[in-house]
């Protein structure tokens, strides 16, 4: 991943995380605030309901008391004393209309209904709840479920006794707890109230009375609220639950269920007051927060992209240029420079790079110069050494001739003949030395054609077989470990033969006490690998470093050009040669040649410095 992308990710993450954190914080605060508001609203509504409930109760009690003292009722009570009740069976209905109560029953002292407004046909029947209602005479109003012909209704009732004559007459009157009751409540926006009646075990579904909805909407509400209602019924305590009206969370409502009981607390629940607070404003606020967060986040990411692009333009481009220049330098283009713009750290870095590169170039030049000088010195030394050997006998021979001419003229002819032979031999030796140098200096370009490396090695093994077993030396075993699947590679078989011969000769020179020479071929990826291993004395690390230097030799004799020639041939084949060796453990030369023809991409000269033990050169 490049720097620009990292920068972009960092900026974007910073923005997104910041916005997300802020958004979450605001959401949490909003949620808490709404929850608090909800609780306060519900509590206020509950208090209002309770006040209204109490007020209504007092009003009902007052009206029922007024009924019991009204003239028709008093008259009826007096008549009932004489057993006359038939003519009053409609009185409850008429009185209920006059006093605007929804329920009214006149019940005599034995609990028999004299007249009923809500169920007129029930005259003469016993009032089922008479025993529990009588003690409530004169007490405050209470909730009661009134069973009617087809249904049950919840109402607020009061009981009063018309104390006329010897027999009591009870008036049980009340008002329905329905929409009209709920309309008295002052509901804030987004709040609504529903009243559920418990119709008893025979009707497990509750009958809702909604202050605001149609019948079908109320039925739908009953279905949705069934869980909360049933839970409240079972627990008998106030409960709260969220109701999801649709898939849109904005339609959710938080409902508080408050159980309503009759005068006897152990009785079953008569109804449940449900206060619903719409969560629309909260959900919409939350959505606005999320939308804003997304918008800000999106904007932030966009800004991050822009900023990262700008930063990249300011920061990464110079760095990229620097990296490119470094790669150029690494690939050998020592003239790569970075433009220096500005005066910041990157400019300083670019300037430092340029100076470093220039210094490296200078150093390289000096190094090359020094190596050339060293190589020339080595060459001169080697040349001096090589030439000194044959020149000394030449000098002695010429001095011997001069002496002989001077001192023994009669032996001069023989001395001249012997000396001539020696001179010619040494001149020949000089010519050979000069020939090798000349040969090294003008190594021909390889002519590549498909060459079977295995055949080449077999040829070499065959060529040196006699020398491996020559008398006067310990025998050398030649082992061929050839990869028969090795395909032919493009190579100059002549040059290759020469290079491999040099390696074999070096190996033989290293195994003066005999040993094993292993010739190995392997196929590795896109290179063909040739190993020439001996079990000779091995090389020290310093020798490994310098072994490919021309004219360097570890032997007592030799021009030191053999491995240089090998290196040159390998290099001309675009291959690499390396050496693995440890003193006393033998040496292995590894030559890797490309299996397909390729041209050199850098055109560099062989690196004269050796960096590690397993050295590869091109």
């Amino acid at each position, binding site marked *: 991943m490049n720097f620009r992308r990292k920068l972009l990710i960092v900026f974007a993450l910073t923005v997104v995380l910041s916005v997300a954190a802020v958004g979450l914080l605001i959401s949490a605060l909003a949620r808490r605030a709404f929850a608090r508001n909800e609780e306060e609203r519900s509590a206020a509504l509950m208090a209002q309901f309770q006040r209204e409930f109490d007020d209504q109760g007092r009003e009902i009690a007052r009206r029922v008391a007024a009924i019991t003292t009204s003239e028709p009722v008093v008259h009826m009570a007096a008549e009932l004393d004489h057993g006359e009740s038939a003519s009053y069976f409609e009185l409850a209905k008429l009185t209920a209309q006059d006093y605007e109560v929804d329920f009214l029953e006149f019940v005599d002292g034995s609990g028999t209904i004299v007249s009923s407004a809500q169920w007129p046909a029930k005259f*003469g029947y016993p009032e089922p709840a008479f025993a529990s209602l009588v003690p409530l005479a004169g007490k405050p109003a209470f909730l009661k479920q009134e069973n009617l012909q087809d249904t049950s209704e919840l109402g607020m009732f009061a009981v009063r006794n018309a104390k006329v004559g010897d027999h009591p007459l009870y008036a049980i009157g009340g008002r329905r707890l329905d929409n009209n009751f709920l309309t008295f409540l002052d509901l804030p926006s987004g709040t609504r109230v529903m009243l559920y009646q418990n119709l008893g075990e025979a009707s497990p579904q509750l009958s809702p009375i909604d202050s605001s909805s149609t019948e079908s909407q109320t039925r739908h509400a009953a279905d949705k609220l069934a869980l909360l209602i049933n839970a409240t019924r079972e627990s008998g305590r106030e409960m709260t639950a969220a109701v999801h009206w649709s898939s849109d969370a904005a339609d959710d409502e938080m409902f508080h269920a408050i159980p309503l009981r009759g005068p006897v607390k152990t009785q079953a629940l008569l109804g449940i007051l449900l206060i619903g607070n719409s969560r629309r404003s909260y959900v919409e606020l939350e959505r606005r927060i999320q939308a804003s967060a997304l918008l800000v986040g999106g904007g932030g990411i966009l800004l991050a992209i822009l900023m990262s692009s700008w930063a990249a333009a300011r920061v990464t481009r110079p760095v990229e240029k620097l990296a490119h220049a470094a790669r150029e330098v690494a690939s050998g283009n020592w003239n790569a420079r970075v433009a220096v713009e500005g005066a910041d750290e990157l400019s300083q870095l670019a300037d430092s790079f340029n100076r470093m590169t220039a210094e490296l170039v200078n150093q390289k030049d000096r190094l090359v110069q020094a190596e050339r000088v060293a190589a020339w010195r080595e060459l001169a030394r080697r040349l001096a050494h090589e030439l000194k050997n044959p020149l000394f006998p030449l000098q002695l021979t010429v001095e011997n001739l001069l002496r002989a001419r001077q001192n023994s003229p009669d032996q001069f002819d023989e001395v001249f003949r012997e000396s001539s032979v020696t001179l010619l031999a040494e001149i020949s030796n000089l010519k050979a030395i000069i020939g090798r140098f000349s040969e090294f200096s003008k190594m021909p370009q390889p002519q590549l054609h498909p060459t079977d490396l295995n055949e080449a090695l077999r040829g070499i093994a065959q060529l040196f077989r006699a020398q491996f077993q020559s008398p006067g030396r310990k025998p050398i075993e030649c082992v061929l470990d050839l990869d028969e699947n090795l395909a032919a590679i493009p190579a100059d078989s002549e040059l290759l033969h020469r290079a491999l011969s040099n390696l074999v000769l070096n190996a033989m020179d290293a195994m003066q006490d005999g040993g094993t020479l292993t010739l190995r071929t392997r196929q590795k990826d896109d290179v063909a690998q040739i190993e020439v291993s001996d079990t000779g004395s091995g090389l020290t690390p310093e020798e490994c470093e310098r072994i490919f230097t021309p004219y360097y030799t570890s032997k007592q004799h030799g021009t030191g050009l053999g491995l240089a020639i090998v290196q040159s041939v390998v290099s001309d084949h675009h291959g690499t040669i390396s050496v693995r060796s440890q003193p006393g453990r033998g040496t292995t030369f590894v030559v890797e040649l490309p299996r397909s023809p390729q041209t050199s991409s850098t055109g560099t000269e062989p690196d004269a410095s050796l960096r590690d033990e397993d050295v590869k050169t091109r």
Partner: protein
Amino acid sequence: MKLSAFQWAAASSLLLTISAFATARPRYGGVVFVSVSEAPTSLDPADTTQPDSFTRRNLTHLVFETLVAHDDLGRIGPGLATSWMFDAAGGAPSWQFRLRPHVILHDGTVLNPAIAADSLRRANPSWKIISDADSVIVECDVASPRLPEELTLARNAIVNKSTDGKLSGTGPFRIADWQPGKKLTLAAEERYWGGRPFLDGIEIEFGKNFREQVTALELGKSDLINISAEQSRRISSSSVQVWFSQPLELIALVFAHAPQSPDEKSLREALALSVERTSMTSVIAQGMGQPAASILPNWISGYGFVFSTEADLFHAQHLREAVRIRPAWTIAYDGSDAIATLLAERVALNARDAGLQLQPTRSATADIRLERIPLTIDPALALSMAASSAGLPPPTIDSDSAEDLFLAEKLFLASQKLIPLFHLPVVYVATSALRDWSPQPDGMWNLDNAWLARDLSGSSHP
């Protein structure tokens, strides 16, 4: 000339007598305003879509006449027919009714046998009726000594119906204006064969509830109202005339179908035993009715007491428990009837005590209907009317004897198509200004000879 004391006394007495005589003497003129709760939409007596009721009978009686009619004592007497005879000698037994001559219909046509025959055919499509020069002959499949009684029914009133549907009768009043279901204005028929009535007209307003009727009466806007018996106790009778007939209206439960199985018979019997007739009559009917387990009231049949009206809840529960499958019945009632709702609910309550399920409804279709069946003083006709309400054919009554009547009624009740609850009287309330208004035993208000005793110039009527 100076009069002596005696002369003064004589003159005063004479003046007083003349004055009193003038006060009691009927006067022509005036319009009687009537308010009723029903709202008929047709005046055609033969229109079977209109339910039978006393109001409808009264309206028919004012405009149309039958061939024969009941007199004040309930006896069959001449109407549009002056005489009638049964002829069994011919090929088919028949009744021949000789028409009263020179009777002019309201449209000016002279009544003739053809018009009478047409009218009777419309009312009785199955009858074979022919007319001759002065008579209408009704042929019977079997000897039907009760045909004259049947001809007294309102539906057999003689009506001349024109092609455009206009109705003309021969009654003392003709139709001046008819607003179906709202108002009927009748004008005295000057050419009435029985003599022009004293009243110039009668204006009847329909669809008025009890409160409206009473208010109209108290305000002088109505002279005559027809209220339910149970409402009569709310009338303070000091300034009005309240007239009660004998119990003539049967309140009954009528089943839509005959019982389909023995179990259903048991359940119907259980229902009949569960009903508390006494409390219904005393409370709902405010004591104005008589509990009834028979179709005919005791004053008509004489044997009504034989049928027990007491509830037997224990027996009813026993019958119900013997039946495994108990249907849920519906009981329909007329929502505009003040006590119908109460009665239906009370019956449902009583039935529930017996373990029967009964659901009151205002729907037109139900298993049971709570019916008001107007009867008549003729017991056989009354049974026929009840049978007609129950969807049964008229009972076969061999003779007028009480035994035959009893058997016929018993057979009728055994069909379990009808459960009598109680009988109610017909009640009319009139202002004191309405004179010579003599309701008849059959419940007719009989305004033919009524007259108004108030100052017509100062009338407060609109």
